[in-house]
């Protein structure tokens, strides 16, 4: 018989039991398998009730983030063998309400994303005859922030979000910066205003856990620092120049 490995999986079904628990499953330790393959094996062959999200299996849809041995990861991009001989503990992402098993409720993020106005804001839209110009270096300015796949690993890693659920959070702030730094956009001011009541941002101590766990190297921590610098400048300016329009 091939080598096996044990997965200890967080189980919670509000329909059946009010208290969560863990359930162990032994699966083949296939060297080509990622954690997600093992979960699919369990669901297909052992226990159809195990619940989790997944889709692309190529690290770009952002569905399958979970805590694996206490670290937030994309389970499609994490090989099983790395954890041999096991056991491997698999839990839903930290800092979120759990809907069932490994499925978190991420509706809070969607509300926050909308709040930061992640779209191009301009006084007027240009003609559809030609593109807005953007040089490769202007593109490079914001490109890293545009790589966010909304996988929520940064929220699971963020100590501030854990304590202050109102904090708009790393991914949403990175995406706000993605538009602020795009030379086609003129919405910096509006986004700054939308974030003026966000206390969480000021509590971010640049620990950088969000950037460390990001599977796409987005560096939300850097984006937040940039915001704080700009935000502070904005605040001073409004104090000193109350009559002037900030540009």
């Amino acid at each position, binding site marked *: 018989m091939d080598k096996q490995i044990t997965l200890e999986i967080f189980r919670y079904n509000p329909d059946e039991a009010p208290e969560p628990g863990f359930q162990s499953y032994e699966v083949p330790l296939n060297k080509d398998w990622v954690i997600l393959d093992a979960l699919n094996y369990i669901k297909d062959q052992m226990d159809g009730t195990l619940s989790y999200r997944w889709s692309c299996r190529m690290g770009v849809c952002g569905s399958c983030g979970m805590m694996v041995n206490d670290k937030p990861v994309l389970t499609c991009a994490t090989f099983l063998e790395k954890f041999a001989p096991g056991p491997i503990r698999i839990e839903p992402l930290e800092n979120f309400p759990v809907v069932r098993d490994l499925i978190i409720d991420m509706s809070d993020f969607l509300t926050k994303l909308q709040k930061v106005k992640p*779209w191009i804001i301009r006084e007027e839209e240009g003609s559809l005859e030609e593109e807005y110009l953007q*040089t490769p270096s202007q593109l490079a300015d914001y490109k890293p922030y545009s*790589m966010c796949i909304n996988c929520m690993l940064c929220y699971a890693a963020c100590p501030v979000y854990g304590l202050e659920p109102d904090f708009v959070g790393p991914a949403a702030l990175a995406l706000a910066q993605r538009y602020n730094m795009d030379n086609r956009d003129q919405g910096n001011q509006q986004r700054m205003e939308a974030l003026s009541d966000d206390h969480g941002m000021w509590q971010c101590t640049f620990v950088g856990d969000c950037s460390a766990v990001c599977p796409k190297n987005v560096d939300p921590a850097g984006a937040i620092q940039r915001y704080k610098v700009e935000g502070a400048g904005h605040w001073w300016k409004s104090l000193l120049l109350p009559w002037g329009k900030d540009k």
Partner: protein
Amino acid sequence: MSPTPNSCDVLIIGAGGAGLRAAIAVAETNPNLKIGVISKVYPMRSHTVSAEGGAAAVIKDNDSLEHHAYDTISGGDWMCDQDAVELFVREAPKEMIRLEHWGCPWSREEDGKVAVRPFGGMKNQRTWFAADKTGFHMLHTLFQTSLKYEKVFRFDEWFVTSLLVDDGRCRGAVAIDIATGQVQAIQAKAVIICTGGAGKVFPFTTNANIKTGDGMALAYRAGVPLKDMEFVQYHPTGLPFTGILITEAARAEGGYLLNKDGYRYLQDYDLGKPEPRPVLRSMELGPRDRLSQAFVKEQEKGRTLQGNYGDFVHLDVRHLGAKVINTKIPFVRELCLKYENLDPIKEMIPVRPVVHYMMGGIHTDIHGATPLPGLFAAGECACVSINGANRLGSNSLTELLVFGARAGEAAAEFAASANGTANKINGLYQDEVNRLNKQFLKKEGGTEKIANIRKAMHKTMEEGAGIYRTESSLMQSQKEVQTLKERFMNVKIADHSHTFNTELIAALELSCLLDVAEAVIQSALHRKESRGSHQRIDYPDRDDEQYLSHSLAYWNKNDFPEVKYNPVSITKWPPGERVYGR
């Protein structure tokens, strides 16, 4: 968000590229309309996200709409409707610029203009790209832009189980809120299906787990024919085991396809002569169907390599060097490093043909309208057809913009003028609740595992309806799928929870897959010729006398689908020979 509405003016099923583009089009056409966007996954999880290479639209001076149209039509082996193609190439640049204005991070030239790259089957460079994550950037741009429209209400993680058809018109849908298990009727004056493809009818596919043909099945069961379902595109370069796509851009930048002897074997298949630099419409930049078929021929000659997950050949990009690989195809490197544990800067990439795209789909006209009043469709789930018998690489992303927008505009107009009352909605809703309870939610017993039926379907589709087909292979698959549909009636559902019941969703998806599989097989069986991606060993030639027609498969509850034909629309380009590399 505000409380869940039970009606809207336009209901869009599917929130990928086509669905979101349609939603924006409705909002911009008529800001008074209430728009519902319903999807079984959050919008940014939609499979548009996985598209890599790019989106075609004429923008450079050395290119022309004629060239784009000809590449599309010859690539499609003359099965494309040429009026639709002409309209498509004409509207493509405007749609792409609009997406640029919405913030899509297109790769650029030094002067700040949008850059284009070559792609398979193209006479000119016209593929816009955002490095090699084009679909990802397009989807997120559309999703983020859609957030500014207040009239858009999203039903995130809802699964549509049937359309509400009353008095000959589509008037909404019945759906399950996956989080709570609640079944609800959502009435609408017009419905647009944008649910994408159905690659999961096959075992080895680039398609995400969610690509289960749900929307195709919804329309099909409501009496709308599925068009050209026999045409299934195999992409020539997928990673073995995972089926992860290695984009055509890897070949467009200059990658070679090599057999086990390190020989660029495409030169043996009338695809041109090997040159060190990529040549447009030649060799590795030939069309996808011909490249995938060449692999099978090479395999038959024993010149492929053997691996744990079937035979493969090599894609070699080493000679491009680290700089080109890291700037032009960084995702290729990321995928190889993360999923194959190899570095394409130093090693060759193992690849084999992999099911990628359904040319066929819900029968629509150039406005996205189906024969059922009030029902529209756009994107991969639809068939206009601009893709014919083999889609030209980088047309699908553009298609979802052009036809997503057109369907949105047409649906907005339909909804604004729609009148009359629906009388039977409550009855239809109750019937659907009863069906779901009986077959799934409250079903007791059952012995068949979902995974086993799915696996058997995969096997028979690959064996009988793959790259090469014969009458007997297709008959065998037809019989097997019929058996599987019977076995499905005895499926076991262990999970009876209301909360986020993914086993229930998997069962519903499997029932859609089986219906789509049947339409693929039946359409393939009836087309007794070889054209584009549909290759019949028993009928090896193209037959324009008999088959310059679109197949239309009609659902039959208790029998095989009926197949009828509609002539292909020809405007300027009479059927000719597909010439590549000479």
